[in-house]
């Protein structure tokens, strides 16, 4: 094993194909059976890892009900959606109270003005 073989072996785990090793090293791989064998192992490894993406494990039967239960629990307590709804309700109540207060104040002022007008 020469220096180039050592460099190829050092760099192979970090690349997705031999081409990424650069022209000089990839040319070396073409002529070196040991490096070709090592490159083939990493190719096989990447292919096998990639094939895992098509495999699905079966989730435990408890997963779905536990998620539904957690969500229902959140919804019955103070969920973000509920908080938003409550906030809007609070805004509406405040606005109505403000309007009522303003109307009352306006009535008092008008009545006051009328009284002072009559007195004059």
């Amino acid at each position, binding site marked *: *094993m020469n220096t180039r*073989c050592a460099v190829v*072996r050092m760099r192979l*785990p*970090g690349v997705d194909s031999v081409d990424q090793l650069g022209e000089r090293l990839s040319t070396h791989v073409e002529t070196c059976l*040991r490096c070709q*064998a*090592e490159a083939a*192992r*990493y190719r096989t*490894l*990447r292919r*096998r*890892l*990639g094939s*895992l*993406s098509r*495999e*699905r*494990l*079966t*989730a*435990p039967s*408890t*997963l*779905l009900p*536990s*998620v*539904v239960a*957690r*969500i*229902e629990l*959140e*919804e019955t307590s103070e*969920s*973000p*959606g509920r908080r938003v709804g409550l906030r809007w309700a609070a805004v509406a109540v405040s606005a109505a109270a403000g309007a009522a207060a303003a109307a009352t104040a306006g009535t008092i002022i008008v009545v006051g003005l009328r009284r002072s007008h009559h007195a004059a």
Partner: protein
Amino acid sequence: MTQPEVERFEEDELVSLATQGDQAAFTELVKNHQHEVYTLAVRMVADRELAHDVAQESFVRAWRAIGRFRGDAKFSTWMHRITVNTAFTHRDRRKRTAADPLDVVYHEPESESLSPERGGESAAIRGPLGDALAALPESLRSVVVLKDVYEWTHVEIAEHLDITVTAAKVRLHRARKSLRLTLWSHQNEEGA
């Protein structure tokens, strides 16, 4: 309309309803994606029990955030990101509370009898590659799973794992080298 197009249309409908707070629609999404999310969780944490908790928490987080889901990515992609983040939250929590972190070998309960379905799962996780993956330190396993199984880019991995792109590349290098040495242990690096 082809079958995948129909499924995509139905999923878009479910996502649209769920974003408006429709709990039944979201439950359907959970039903459709539970196996995929659980699989990713198992691969990230290499522990079935913990993976169940990670998957459950991921869906709950998704429900809380579904109103902000704009559909820029597929729902499954969005769920993957949430699952990876949740796996890391659980890892950190476990690191704080346990003496032994997640860098442990995956253990299948010995007394558990396997149905044909569970037997299939077991083969998918275990086998030489599954065992080698589970034996990797968590920091290396997560990078190689995200890059080589789920085809994330180094940039995406770095963002989600809160590490630099260089660190992601270094971890991938180490992970692949470790897997290669484990899987072809009889053919050492000096050449067979």
